[in-house]
């Protein structure tokens, strides 16, 4: 079947379809690989050319070849056709291909259904507020296209098509809200699909020197914290992340070891807070050192007091947590395995450091004195805190301590921990965040990637694990004022501008507050929120029966309202006030038992009314005269129209008794 496309015939619906498909694929610009976008654009241009020139659609063999190439490409890239990424790429390309052979209405409608699906897929990549108007616009366009394709012959201008479909979407909105709020949400996935791929952001499972430096330049939000009641002072705001035990001389890593959890002894004060975590695509939850209570049953606290969840966090999540910064952990002593792991250093690496540690430890006499000596060394010798340290050698700690002496928190924590272990003191590196910026509009703290930090924990007999932050020894302002305090010229220009202008900072706070509100109330709306909603409505024991009952009531009400609105539109509205008044007069007389025949003029009708209902004559006569005056005479008094409406309003004929 190779018919040349008939030129000019019904090309407008096709244009709507192409615009819709393009817009829907456009929502995926950020996450489709460039070659997919390129093929899509080429295929679209091809179709446009075919439509404009009226030439033949590409032959069947060529189309089959393209399909094979496209499916092969997607398979090569994703190793699967399943899952969101591969599915999105495949749907986009198949939509463009389908367009290439599209002639009839049915194909176009199928394409438009696919476009709706692509909009949904865009939400799987992110549910930011700014996406909402974009996606709503695309959905509107698709709906308009469906209207146009389904009724290609209706004489509707594009504006009318958009207006009508927009109005229908607006009319659908109340129903949508009822469904959104009350449709019972079943938590949890039903089947395991490969999740959406996100590059993991924030801290990783290991730490090489220089790793955290990259994060320090990013103003992206890591998480937000809203304290209920007391707020810890800045020096206590250590947000505990991955604890790193294993060191190969260059890189610290979490390792695979395991130990028995020793319940820490904790002391007041306790800080309760809501943690709103951005997706990290990792397993850990950042909590104020040291977390003691958590809301979510899936959270697990490991032996090194790190909160972990069983599945990767690929969606924004909110947790209720409580922490107590004053604690004594593992006072009873370390188990053998942990003792071994946390004192281990590779034998043949960083030899100068080991030698220095043994020398200093012997000189200090005790562990505590030794720690002080090391911190004093960082403080008093020429160590510098900088974001742009030089590259370190293979024996990174040796190179740092004896050579470059310029570094960031990762360098200091690494060197400090190595020095401890070299002296036989159990020590480990803890990564996480330190600090947080207060959003005074939203009343919560924003912790950004630039607040990423690394510090050390040292096990001391009788005291258990104790936190030491060597960075604080070198750059105390880092802990007091956050990373901005030490960045200076290294701070990105945009950040410097925002910090320099209070009102720009306020705008950023306002945007962040709005986004947070959006996230808490819309994106994370779910079964729990529905329960809260029902409780707020005064239902003591909310369950799904209440939800479905309310849903039914809500739907009935919304549909009744819709019917009412539509029926009202259907009634013709009389614009002319004089005619409207007279029509109302006739309606009321009809209720009173005298119906005007279509052929009856106002005076004939009046005569009949007077015959049939003499009791109404006094009221009807001036009304009919006024109407005749206004309609057929040139010298009607100025206020005659108002007079007419006034009299009609006051006219209430009752049915004749008997």
């Amino acid at each position, binding site marked *: 079947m190779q018919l040349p496309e008939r030129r000019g015939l019904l090309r407008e619906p096709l244009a709507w379809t192409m615009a819709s498909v393009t817009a829907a694929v456009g929502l995926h610009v950020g996450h489709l690989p460039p070659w997919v976008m390129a093929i899509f654009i080429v295929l679209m241009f091809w179709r446009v050319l075919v439509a404009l020139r009226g030439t033949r659609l590409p032959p069947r063999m060529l189309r089959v070849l393209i399909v094979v190439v496209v499916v092969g490409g997607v398979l090569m890239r994703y190793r699967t056709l399943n899952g969101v990424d591969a599915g999105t790429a495949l749907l986009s390309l198949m939509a463009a291909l389908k367009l290439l052979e599209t002639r009839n209405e*049915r194909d176009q*409608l*199928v394409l438009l*259904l696919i476009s*709706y*699906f692509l*909009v*949904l897929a865009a*939400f*799987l990549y992110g*549910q930011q507020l700014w*996406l*909402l108007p974009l*996606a709503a616009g695309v*959905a509107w366009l698709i*709906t308009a296209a*469906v*209207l146009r394709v*389904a*009724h290609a*012959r*209706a*004489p509707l201008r594009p504006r009318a098509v958009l207006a*009508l*479909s927009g109005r*229908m*979407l607006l*009319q*659908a*909105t*109340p*129903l*949508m809200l009822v*469904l*959104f709020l009350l*449709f019972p*949400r*079943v938590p*949890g*996935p*039903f*089947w395991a*699909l490969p999740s*959406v791929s996100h590059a993991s952001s924030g801290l990783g499972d290991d730490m090489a020197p220089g790793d955290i430096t990259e994060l320090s330049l990013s103003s992206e939000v890591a998480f937000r914290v809203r304290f209920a009641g007391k707020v810890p002072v800045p020096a206590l705001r250590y947000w505990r992340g991955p604890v790193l035990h294993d060191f190969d001389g260059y890189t610290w890593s979490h390792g695979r070891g395991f130990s028995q959890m020793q319940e820490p002894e904790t002391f007041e004060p306790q800080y309760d807070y809501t943690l709103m975590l951005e997706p990290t695509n990792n397993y850990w939850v950042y909590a104020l050192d040291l977390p003691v209570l958590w809301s979510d049953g899936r959270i697990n606290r490991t032996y090194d007091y790190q909160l972990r969840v069983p599945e990767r966090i690929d*969606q924004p999540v909110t947790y209720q947590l409580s922490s107590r910064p004053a604690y004594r952990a593992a006072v009873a002593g370390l188990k053998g395995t942990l003792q071994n792991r946390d004192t281990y250093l590779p034998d043949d690496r960083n030899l100068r450091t080991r030698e220095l540690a043994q020398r200093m430890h012997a000189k200090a006499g005790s562990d505590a004195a030794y720690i002080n000596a090391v911190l004093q060394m960082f403080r008093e010798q020429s160590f510098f805190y900088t974001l742009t340290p030089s590259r370190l050698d293979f024996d990174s700690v040796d190179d740092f301590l004896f050579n470059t002496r310029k570094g960031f928190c990762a360098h200091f924590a690494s060197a400090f921990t190595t020095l401890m272990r070299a002296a036989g003191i159990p020590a480990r590196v803890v990564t996480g965040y330190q600090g947080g910026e207060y959003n005074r509009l939203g009343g919560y703290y924003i912790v950004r990637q630039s607040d990423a930090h690394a510090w050390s924990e040292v096990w001391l007999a009788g005291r258990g694990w104790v936190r030491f932050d060597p960075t604080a020894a070198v750059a105390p302002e880092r802990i007091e004022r956050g990373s901005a305090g030490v960045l200076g010229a290294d701070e990105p220009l945009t950040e410097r501008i925002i910090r320099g202008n209070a009102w720009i900072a306020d705008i950023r706070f306002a945007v962040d507050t709005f986004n947070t509100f959006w996230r808490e109330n*819309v*994106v*994370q*709306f*779910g079964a729990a929120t529905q329960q809260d909603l029902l409780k707020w409505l005064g239902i003591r024991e909310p369950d799904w029966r209440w939800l479905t009952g309310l849903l039914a009531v809500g739907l009935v009400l919304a*549909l009744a309202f*819709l*019917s009412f609105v*539509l*029926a009202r*539109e*259907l*009634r*013709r*509205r009389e614009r002319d006030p004089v005619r409207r008044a007279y029509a109302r007069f006739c309606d009321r007389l009809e209720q009173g038992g005298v119906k005007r025949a279509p052929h009856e003029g106002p005076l004939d009708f009046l005569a009949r009314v007077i015959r049939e209902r003499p009791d109404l004559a006094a009221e009807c006569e001036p009304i009919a005269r006024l109407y005749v005056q206004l309609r057929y005479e040139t010298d009607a008094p100025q206020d005659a129209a108002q007079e007419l409406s006034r009299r009609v309003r006051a006219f209430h004929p009752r049915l004749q008794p008997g």
Partner: protein
Amino acid sequence: MAASPLSRLRVFVNDRVQRWARRRQGPDHAPFPLERRRIYILPTKFGVAYAITVFAMLLGSMNYNNSLGFALTFLLAALGLVVMHHCHRNLAGLVIANVQAGEAFAGGWLKLAVGCENPSGVARFGLRFECLETVADLPHLPAASPALATLELPAETRGVLRIDRISVSTGFPLGLFRAWSWIYLPVEAVVYPRPAGEQAPPPSAESDRGALGLTRRGDEDFRGFRSYHPGDSPRRIAWKALARGAPLLVKDHAGATRAPLIFELGQVQSRDLERGLSQLCRWIVTAEAQLNPFGLRLPGVLIAPESGAAHRRRCLTALALVGAEQPRAAA
């Protein structure tokens, strides 16, 4: 062609539904508005596909617990409900003013004009009238205006074509639903025999003036004026006299009375009834076109010689009804 069990089931169900609707509604009397209770609505194939898509989207949103996904899914579901109301409203209140059948010869087309009116304040789109598998589309019916939809039905055989039911439907606005209503305004359309046959018309008994007589002879046989009767050919009206202020007069020709041409089946050579009727039909059509007066004699029917559109109709109807005791019913 053996009908598949599925299509037979469909026919059966359709039949039952139609009978039920007929009982429910009773006969109609034009003009009447399409009330809500007589408008039926069902999803189309595309509507079902749309529903499946929305359901798949719901599953996707649930699986990924995606709030905006839920919002979009619910918006589309709600849109479906809104569209259903719009579709229903697109028919509601439409006034069916009348149904009129034109004239048709067997083998030709019968024009069936459905007059409708949109008394409401909103325009209607995509109306479709259907009758006997014939479709007439009315893409646009503006607010507060009337329109005429013309169905062209195939007129297959001579006789009475009884049209019981016309359906009016719409898929507007998104084609997700089809709302329809049945109009029961019985119309009996007469289908004339197919004009056919090569036989020349019979000559007049008294003179050789046949079908070609009058126009050639000119005014020679002009006998005078007589007053106009409905059915007289407009060509014979004395326009000049009318223009001068005289009453409506018709020129009377002597030839017309001297040669009363009466067609009858006996003049046709063929013994076959239908062929004969076809031949008579052709003679009548030709004679009328040439303004020749003619009469018609059929078993039990005698139509005196006359001319004019009404006369022609009467004669052709008589031909159509030959042998038709009962009009054949067509659903």
